[in-house]
Every structure is written in C-alpha cells, then in structure tokens.
C-alpha cells in the first residue's frame, strides 16, 4: 500500500509532464489545468500517505525500486526513501507548487512560452520529488540534474533577451560544479563502501564509523564534496551572487525556484547526509562557519539592496545560512520548521513584490522622515562607508569567482593556440589511434608508461574541451572538439582498467547519436547565413524554433542528463577510476564540467539571445 502510494507520488508528476508536452501550445487553459490537476492529485495522495504514515507510527520507509544496470563491480539502482525530512519537504513542496500553478494559470495568460513554463515547472516538480524521495546518491543525482536543467531553462525563459541568457549560463556553470561534486561523491562512495550505499544504511552509525575509521580521508573527501554541492545549490558563500541573477523568469517561477524549493535543496542534502558527516568535526565546523558568515554578510548585502527581488534573495540566503548552522548542530526539526517558514515567506514576498511600489510610496507619503546623516564619529563614518561599499559590490563575490574559478581555465584554453591549426586534428587522430593500438598490444609497452597513458589522454581531453570552451570561431568546429573530448575520455578510462566493451558502448552510444543530431542541426543553421561564429549571440530560435528544440535535446543527450544512456555511462566511467588516482579523476571531472559548459554555450550562443536580424523588434543588450 505505502509502496504503491510513494511510487505514485513520483509517477504522477512524470505523467503530468508528459501530458503537458503533448498538448498543443494554443490550448492555454488545458495546459495549465493539466498542471493544476497533476499537482492537486499529487497533493491529495501525499496527504493520504502522510496520514497513513503517521497512523502507522511514522517509521522510515525504503523501497529498492529497480536495477538499471548491474555488473560485478557496479550496481546502479533506483532507491526510494521516506522519513520526516521527506515529509516536510514534500508538504512544503506541494503547497507552494499548488499556489504557484494556480497563480500562474492567470498570471502567465497569453505569455509567449506559456506551455514551456508549465512543462518546465512540472519537470522541475518531478526532479524535486525524485530528490526528496531518493534513497541513494544515484537517485538523488538524477533529480538534482533535472532541477539544474529546469533552472537553466527557466532563467533563460525570456531567451530573446541578453541578460537572462547570460545569467542562465552563469548560474548553470555553478550548478554544474555542484553536480560534478556529487558525481565525485558517488565515485568515492563506491570505493569506500564497495557497493552502492543507501541513505538508510548511513543510519547505522557503528557501520559508518567502522568504515570511516579506516578510510578517514575518503570520508572527508565525500563530506567536502557534499558540502560544496549544498553550498552552491543554496547560494551560500562564496557562491551567493548567483541567486539575485537567477530572478530573470516570470515572478512566479522565481518565487518557486529561488524563493523556495530549489534553493533549499542544499539544506536538504545536508539533512539527508547528516548521519554520514555527523562524526566529522572539521566538516561540522566548516558548515557552521560558512553558515555564520553567510548569514552576516548576506544580511549586510540585503540591507543595501535597492531592488525588491534582490533584497528578498539576500535575506533568504541569510536565513539559509542559519539553517546550515542548525543542521550542523543537529537541530533537525528546527531546521525543518525554519525551512518551511522561509520557503513560505519568500514565495509570498516574491509573488507580491510588484505591489511594493504602490504600498511603500503610499506609506512614505504619510510617514516620511528624512534620513539623518550627521553626527557620526569620523572613524565610524569611515567604517560605515567601507562596509557600505563592500556590500554594494556584493563583497566582490562575482569577481572572485570569475577570477579564481573560470579565468584560469579560460587562460589555458586561450593559450593552447596550437589546437587552432587544422593539421593538429590529424595529429590528434594519430595519437588516438596509437592509444587504441597500445590498448591492443599492452604487453609490448612498459608498464610504467602504460600506467601514464590514461592521465595523458585525460589531459588531452581537458585541453581539447577547454579549447572548445573558449573558442570564438565556428560552432561546428567547437562541437567537433567537444565530441573528440568525449572520445578521449572513453579511451583514457578504457586504458585505465580492464576494458569492458559494453560499458564503453553505453557511454559512447548516447554521446554519438546526440553528437550527430547536433551536428546536423548546426549544419542546417549554418546554411541560413553562413555565420555561426561563437563570438556573439545569434538568437536563431526566433527563425528556427524546431531545430532549436532538437538541438537542445541533443545537447542534453551529449551531457548525459538523466534518462539518456550516457548518464549511466558517465557513472560507469567513474567506477573504472581508482580511489588513489586523484589526478586522473580531477582531469576527467574537469573535462566533464567543461564539456557541459561548452555544449550549453554553443546552444546559448547559436539559438538564444537577441535575434541578430532586426526586421522585428529585438531587445537592448542592457535588458
């Protein structure tokens, strides 16, 4: 009974999503009502479940759902889990989701992208439910990725303007970093536990301690990766500045994503993995420190904000900082109440944010007091000014992230001029062929050299994709570079461990089909004006919306976004890298990060942004 209910809770949003995909764009009402019905049914079922669950003594429920892939070394299965945390997240989720879908049913009337909006929020709801009902990291990751992609699509909802697209890429880059951290968590977990660990097993503290005592560094590594993923998702320091920039979609989508549900998933991740890092003092202290400084600094930044939505964003970040502290101290229930209060409050504030103008002006009209600036001691005045400037500049967070995180890679990409030359392609092919040969004639190669080959090929892969990432030339060329980077990863991993043909096929099949589809799309677009240079936004979506959608799907396929074969492939690849191979894992992870970024960059530059032809109204770059 319970099992079926829980499964339904995940299936319903999925069906809602599929149905909404099939409804023609013109049938506005049908689309939004489908969404409302989906959410309502989901809510009703959940209430049933909740009553039953409380009645039966609210114990933890776990269901091992299905195995998607199994080999000796690796067992990939979907696992479902339900406890108090899930209950609260689900409760808040459906209440807000219901409110926002009803709100949007009217609010989005006649908006271009009406259907897109409802399909995306249903997909998001599916992702959200997968995350909160997940019983292991793999399942959680699927939901996590879906939420990430939906974020990208909703921030870039107004895709014919420059800033939404720019900010969507910016936010997605950071999310992507968090995603890779989660992949690393899974990778290391495989090596730590030697099987696919579920969250319920983490509750067995003796078992966990036993493992951690032997492999302390592994434990730290996993916890740090979890922390980074949570910090990114919940916009804590130093990644806070993405949140205000994510408020680009319709107000109601900002409310549900960045006011409430998506933003609090970082807290969820910490709550969910608490039994794992509970005994790691260093991690606890880090979480508290991050939470504390975020709360302080975000409060300062919130106070200088002179726009409604950014003020709400930073206030919310500060509250989440406090939640981090609560979680670290083990105050689970407090954190959950805090989460609910914050999510409700921010959603409300964002939804009514346009009315602030009228309300406050009216208020001012009757209660105005002019600000008093005098009489501060010079030192305090200086201090005040200093912090004011810092907060106004958002503590330069954006700048540092660019400088420290992305610029080094851009630098490498720009410096590797040699990759520009066409003959170099031939050289790469040769090197690649040599790699395959060396794989077949392993015994002819000295072991010490053979062991370095995976790193060598992974390095090449990274170099190639960095080139694609920074390249301003032809999009097709970049696309090819991305694909070759994929091939190099496959080769590198194959050289690293016993070669399993099936697994590489799984990995490459998704990638190759997507790559070919993408290639065809790009060729078709190139035929229009013979200009698909990546140095500017082209906005071809205006002319060729269908190609744009197909290309987007190809991109997602190439990235290994859930449900495509290459998703499992990516996961599989990682199992062939051993726990001590830090350099290799770093190179391959970075390659994956930049593959993802480059792919989306190609999509964004070619299809999104202001259309380059001005026979119709197009937006200013400053909007």
């Amino acid at each position, binding site marked *: 009974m319970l099992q079926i209910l829980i499964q339904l809770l995940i299936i319903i949003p999925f069906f809602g999503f599929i149905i909404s995909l099939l409804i023609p764009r013109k049938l506005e009402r049908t689309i939004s009502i489908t969404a409302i019905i989906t959410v309502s049914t989901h809510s009703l079922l959940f209430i049933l479940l909740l009553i039953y669950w409380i009645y039966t003594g609210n114990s933890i429920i776990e269901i091992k759902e299905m195995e998607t892939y199994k080999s000796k070394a690796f067992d990939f299965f979907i696992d479902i889990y339900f406890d108090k945390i899930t209950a609260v997240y689900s409760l808040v989720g459906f209440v807000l989701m219901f409110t926002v879908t*009803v709100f949007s049913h009217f609010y989005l009337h006649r908006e271009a992208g009406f259907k897109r909006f409802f399909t995306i929020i249903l997909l998001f709801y599916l992702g959200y439910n997968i995350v909160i009902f997940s019983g292991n990291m793999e399942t959680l990751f699927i939901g996590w990725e879906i939420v990430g992609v939906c974020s990208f699509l909703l921030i870039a909802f107004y895709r014919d*303007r420059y800033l939404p697209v720019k900010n969507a890429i910016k936010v997605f880059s950071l999310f992507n970093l968090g995603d890779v951290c989660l992949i690393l968590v899974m990778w290391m977990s495989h090596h730590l536990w030697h099987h696919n660990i579920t969250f319920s097993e983490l509750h067995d503290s003796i078992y966990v301690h036993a493992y951690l005592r032997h492999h302390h560094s592994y434990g730290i590594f996993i916890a740090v990766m979890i922390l980074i993923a949570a910090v990114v998702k919940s916009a804590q320091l130093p990644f806070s500045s993405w949140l205000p920039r994510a408020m680009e979609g319709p107000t109601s989508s900002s409310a549900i994503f960045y006011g409430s549900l998506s933003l609090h998933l970082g807290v969820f991740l910490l709550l969910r993995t608490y039994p794992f890092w509970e005994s790691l003092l260093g991690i606890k202290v880090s979480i508290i420190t991050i939470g504390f400084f975020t709360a302080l600094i975000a409060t300062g930044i919130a106070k200088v904000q002179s726009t409604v939505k950014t003020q709400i964003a930073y206030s919310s970040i500060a509250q989440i900082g406090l939640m981090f502290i609560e979680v670290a101290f083990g105050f689970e229930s407090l954190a959950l*109440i805090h989460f*609910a209060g914050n999510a409700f409050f921010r959603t409300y504030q964002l939804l009514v944010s346009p009315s602030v103008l009228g309300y406050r002006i009216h208020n001012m*009209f009757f209660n105005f007091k002019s600000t008093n600036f005098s009489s501060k001691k010079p030192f305090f005045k200086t201090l005040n000014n200093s912090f004011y400037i810092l907060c106004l500049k958002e503590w330069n967070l954006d700048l540092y992230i660019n400088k420290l995180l992305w610029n080094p890679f851009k630098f490498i990409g720009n410096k590797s001029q040699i990759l520009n030359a066409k003959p170099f392609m031939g050289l790469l092919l040769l090197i690649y062929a040599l790699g395959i040969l060396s794989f077949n004639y392993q015994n002819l190669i000295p072991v010490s050299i053979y062991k370095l080959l995976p790193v060598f090929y992974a390095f090449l892969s990274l170099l190639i994709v960095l080139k694609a990432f920074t390249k301003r030339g032809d999009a097709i060329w970049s696309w090819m570079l991305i694909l070759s980077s994929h091939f190099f990863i496959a080769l590198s991993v194959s050289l690293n461990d016993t070669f399993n043909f099936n697994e590489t096929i799984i990995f490459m099949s998704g990638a190759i089909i997507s790559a070919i589809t993408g290639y065809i799309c790009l060729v078709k677009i190139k035929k229009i004006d013979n200009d698909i240079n990546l140095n500017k936004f082209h906005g071809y979506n205006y002319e060729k919306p269908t190609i744009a959608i197909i290309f987007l799907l190809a991109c997602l396929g190439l990235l290994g976004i859930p449900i495509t074969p290459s998703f499992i492939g990516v996961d599989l690849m990682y199992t062939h890298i051993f726990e001590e191979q830090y350099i290799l894992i770093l190179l391959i992870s970075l390659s994956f990060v930049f593959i993802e970024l480059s792919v989306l960059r190609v999509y964004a530059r070619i299809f999104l942004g202001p259309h380059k032809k001005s026979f119709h109204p197009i937006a200013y*770059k400053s909007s």
Partner: protein
Amino acid sequence: MISELDILENSTKIKNTFFNEKTVLHNLKHYLPSQTPLKDFVHHNTLHAFQDMKFYDAIFKASDIFGFRATLQLTEFRELFKNGRIEKSILERVIVEKKGLTNLEIWKEKLLEKQYEATNTARIGILRQVWKQKFHIALDSLVQPILFRIICCYLDQGISLWKFPNSNTGFFNAIKEIEESSFTSFFKSKRAKSLLFKQGLEITDLLKILVGDDERYYEQYLFDQQFTHKGWSGIVSSIENTPQSLLDLRKIYLRDLILFELLLEIDAIDSEIGEDWKPLTSKVDFEPIDLFKDSEYKELNEVFALWQNGFEWSYYDKVLAGIKLDNEKKISKRLNSIANEKLKSVKNFQAILCIDERECSFRRHIEKADSNSETFGTPGFFSVEFYFQPENGKFYEKLCPAPVTPKYLIKEINSNNKREHEILYTDNVPNLILGTLYTFSLGFLAIIKLLLTILRPKMSPSISDAFKHMDKDSELTIENKNISDIENNLQIGFTIEEMAIRVESLLRSIGLIDNFSKLIYVIAHGSSSANNPHHSAHDCGACSGRPGSVNARVFAFMANHSKVRELLNSKGIKIPNDTQFVGSLHDTASDLIAYYDEHNLHDANIQLHSKNKIIFDNALDNNAKERSRRFASINTKFNLKKVRSSIEKRSVSMFEPRPELGHGTNSLCFIGNRALTKDLFLDRRAFLNSYNYRTDKDGSILCNVMKPIGPVCGGINLEYYFSRVDNYKLGAGTKLPHNVMGLIGVANSCDGDLRTGLPLQMIEVHDPVRLLVIVEHFPSVVLETIKSVPDMYSWYLNEWIHLIVIHPETNKIYYFKNEEFIEYRTMTETVEGTTDIVNIIETARLMETNNIVDATKENLPVYLIN
C-alpha cells in the same frame, strides 16, 4: 530662454570643430526618455524629441539613429491585408493619392510582393563597439551592473534599509565623500580614484583619456554611452528637471552620471589591461558620424508609410462613414428630433465625465439605462487645478494636467481614514534577527495569506485603491475666505471669483449653459489594481496619473456654491436653485462608483438621487459586461451581477497582470455634440469631448478645448503606438519578470536597465494607429483656431495627429492636409446597423495570440445603433 537658444544656435555653427559640453548635455537630455518615476505615470509622445518633423520623416529618422522599429513589420502588414483588416480599396486610394494612378500597380507589387532587406543597423553604438571589436573589452558588462546599482541605491526611495551615505549632498559629492573616508572603494584601480578628486574635473578630461584628443568623436561617444542605458540616463535627466517628482529628494545631474560612468570605464579598462593603453580613437578607422544627419531615402520606408496609412484609413473610413450615415438619417428625421428635444428639454439627470475613452462605453450605458439622461465629456480635472494634501500627508499631490503648475492647495481635514498596514509588508526583513523571527512567525501567516489571495481575492492595504485617495467623509478646504491664507506659496482654496471663473469655463466648454437638470453628476475616474507598479498609468491622465475624485468633489462644491451661482447668473448662466451637482468617482477597473457629499442633497433630490443610483448601477453592470469580453477569465454570457463581481475581483487579484486594459485601442477623439456619436458603437476607442459649436461661433472656446488634445490624447495615443510597434525598445516588455527598482521604476533583471514605456499587457489589444481628431464645426473656424497656437498647430501640421472637421450644416467631411481642409469622401458605403449590442459583445471572439494579426480581430468594427 532666449539666451539658451542663442547658445544652441551658436554652438551648432561651430559644432564640427570642437566639443561643447553644455550643448551636448542639452541635446542628450532632449533625446533621452522623459519618463518620470513610476508613481506618477504621465503619458507622452515617446518620440517627443522628433516632434518638430513630419511624422514619417521623424519615425524613420529616429529608427535609423536608435535602431528601433517604427512601424509594424512588413509581414504583419501583409497578413493584415490578407485577413481583410487593411481594405484593398483604401490601400489603393492611399497609393494613388501619393503615387498617382499610373504607378498604382508598381507600388502595389512593392507593398504586397517585393522582398526587402529589412534589417536596419542603428547609428548609435557604432563608435563604442570598437571597445569590443578592437580592444576585446566588454565594457558595458563591466561597468553597467555596478553603475546601475550605485545610481539605484542613491536614488532609492524606500527599499534599502541601509541608506546611501551622504545622499543629501548631490550624487557626485556623495561619491566623493564616501571615497574620501573609506577603506574600500567603488573603483578597482588607482587612476580612476585619483581622477575623482581632481579639482574642477571636466567631462573632456576623461574623454581625452578614453576617446583621445580628437574632440570630434566626443559627442558621438557620449550619445553611444548614454543610449546603452537610456532608462537610467532618462530617469536621471528627468529627476534633474523635476526633482520634486521624488518624495525623498535627491540631487542628481546627468553630468554627474556621465562623469562617474566615464570614471568607471577608465577604471574597468585599467583593471583589465593595466594603465598603459591608447585611447579608443587610436583604433578607430572611420570618421565621426553625425548621428542626426538626415536619413538616406529608402523605398522600404515609403512602403511602410503607405501600409500604415492604409491600416489607419481602413478603420477611420468606417468611422467617418458611420457618422455620415447616422447624420443623414437624423437629418431626414430632423423635424421629429427637434420636436422631441423641445419636449424633453430638461433631462432626468446630467452627468459630466472625463473624455477618457474608457468612459465612452459607460456613457453609452448610462444613456441606455435612462434614455432621458444626458452625458458630457471634458478633461477629468474639471477645470480645477490645485495641489491636494490628504490629512496627515507629508506631501502635496498635483491634481491637474502635468504641464500646469497650480497656485492653489486643497487640504483634507476631519478624515476618519485610518491608514491600514499589511503586516507581511514589513520592511525589516533584511534584518538578521528580526528577519529570523519573522520567518518563524510570519512565514506561516504568509502561506495562509497567499492561499487566500489566490482563492478569495479581496481588497487589502497592499492594493492601490482608487477610493482611498480621499476619504469620502472628510472635509476639503475648498473655499478661500482669507487671501493671506497661504502655505508654501500656495493659496489655500479658491476665492468666489476664482471658483466662478472655473465653473463658467467648464460649463461653456461643454455647452451646458441652460436646461440644467435637478441633479448633475460630476464623475471622475480612477483605477484600483493589485501587484501593479504601473498602476498610475491607469488613473486619470488629466490629474497627473491620479484618481480625479477630489477634482469632482471640488467642482461640485464650487458649482453648488450660492455666491458662485450669483456670479454665474450675472454672466448669463442661470442655474436653477433646485439643481445640485454631485461629485463622484468611477473605478474603471472594478466598475464601482462612489458619490460624495450626498448629505448636502435637498430632500427632493435625495429621492431622485437614489433612483439615479440604480440607473448608474445598471449602467455599470452593462459596462462590466462589455469590458469582460476581452478577459479570458470571465465568461461574458454569465448573468450581469456575476460578471460584475468577477470584474471587481479581477481588480484586487494579485495574480492578474491585466486588471484593466487602460487606454488600449484608443484611436479617435470627438469634439462636438454627443448627438454626433450617440448612435455609434465605437468599442471604447474614442475620447469624447463635449463641445457645442452653436454657442461658440467664432471658435474662441474651441481653442481652449483643443489645446490639451495634442499633449493629452495625442500623448497617450503615441505612447501606445510606439510601445506597440516595438515593445522591446520603446515599451517596457512583459510585466512578469519586472523587478521594482528603488520605487522609481522597473527593470528586468537585477542588473538591467530601467524599462520605460508601457508593458506588453497594456498594449496587446492596441492597434497602432494615430489619433483621428473629429471636430464638429466650420472648417474655416477650426483652421483659424489651430493656427492661432503654434504648438497646437504643429501636432496637425506634422501629421502626428489626423484632423477631420464635420461641417455642421452640410454634413460634409473635411480632412486637414497641407495646411488646408479638403473634402473627404468615404469609401465605405454601408455600416452595419444593430439593435442588439449585447449580442455582439457576447459573440465577439477573444484573440488567439497577441500578435497584431490576431489581436486586431478582437477590436470590433463600427456599428450604427438603431
């Protein structure tokens, strides 16, 4: 004034030789958007800077310079032709008139078939592109986010808790003072900061560093720079012009903004590539461009102009045919009607409403609900201009057209209005400790509130309520009994003579000088809406974007005043003693009405009044029904009361981005007797100004009636036109992602430019056509009248407004063209008649998409009401 002009003239002579800061700043301010902070939305011609040119020359030139679209797209025009919205016969006539009969086929082919390269590149921005192209610096991305944030924080009226330090000393000084005593800096590098403190820093000092020694490029550079963010530059320029448009005063000059932006640019480049770089012109390989040189001839522009004319006249022609046919019918029944008029010379009641086209349907429904009633239209400030101070208000509100500066103040006293608060709107949220407490408490209140606002929308303190503008039961200091009663240079109230002048002028202008009914309603309008930063754009334009309730009440008081009546009597306007004026307010969004000072009514009138209230209520029911046909959320066929309550609910719904549709579809302006339009169904598209040519044979009153038509109606019409044809660059885009900036405007993103113009939701029903003014008078009188005021004349001469005169005796139609009136013959032969408007309303279809090709189908044609 003269000296300034002289400077300008002198400077244009020497323009090409060197840079004159004053002139360039003056020019910039001239071309930047002049939109004021959003709390007062005053409609105006978006391209006011080009108004001294002919319409088409102006829009195409402006389009060449700034790169926006000035008309619909070619494909759209062609679609409109295909679906019949642009009539073939009209289009052909337009072509023949312009190109001659022999060229008809050639031009038809051009309009309908020929492929054009329609992409236009703007002149603006070419110079500064060099930063990106040759220096590989994305200067705008580096400078704009921080620049916008600093300006927004400086101007902020009440969002931030931590105020901009020293914001009382002027923008540039404040920046200096902060930088002087701070451990941190807005700048990333040293040079810019030291330049900031340079004594007597001039724009040219900085341009020399950035652009180089060649001063010929300076003006172009500044235009390029300021127009990459015309929203912020525009608001700064507008605040510089009228600082009192902010409640919390801020001193800021466009010059400050430019200086600071130039400093930030130097700073950004320095920190990207170090201090050692050559100025922009070192890599510029083209001569400076004169942005404002005349455009080259483009055939496509002529094609657009022909299409636009075809589009406009396809509609106008039907309207004019309607008037003509209706008049002919009346003339044939003339004897009848005169007899009738005599019989019914005193009406049951009369109502004076605003000329606003939203009242066009309300008036029709009033007249239908009581066929023996009479309505008039006049600009909704009712000829009384003053500042208003609500009780406990810390500021004054201007209640008259924006260009007028009143000398009077009217105060609200003895108000029972308690200002209500919305606890969830607390501004202390960014506070960490309070914020946390709120999250734990208000958070859970918020979700209940949220569910209620969605499931049961109702009026709340967070919604702008037109009826709250003035307390119904308060008193107003309308009469001035002592001339020394002066506050801040404003006389409190009007003296008897001043009142009489205003009452007389209004009554004469609308031709109401005899046959007074017992009750005369003075109905102002306002609009309530929720979650809408543009709410004041829906209020009365003649009251500076506010509800006109106070004006209506003030006018009624004046007209009821016995001493005023004595004076009027001496001037030949005899208002019977039992006649009373009643001020009231119509909410155009919720279709509710309020009446003021009902307790002053004579006993006999009380009964009449309660009867009339039922009539008004009935009219509002029908008005609500007529409006509801455009709202997808309401089924028009439901019973009247249900529709009305849905309309009311709409106006208080947080989730409703279209509480009403504002001035959307406005396209006509009638100046004449109501009889001219009474039997026409105009679908709420006409401004209706009452005027009686019989009482004004020489046109002396007409001049005053027509003076505001250009700036008010023309302004509204053109703002809608431009926001419709290019909603991205000239309008504010869709409302849904808007973020309120500093309580002064909206922007899309946190780093975006302020959006000026109208949002998509307000313009999607609008057909972009120019205003057609129709005057009932003799052509010679009208010609003389418009020529008498050059400012007024230029609107018509330059074709920003079309002008038609209906000869009251011959019933002939004349069109103003090339400084004279020529006879206009309508092409439309029949106009459909109907007795059943309700059926037409109920069966009208909603637009499929808001693309003009679909949207225009929602606008109904002209019908004769039989």
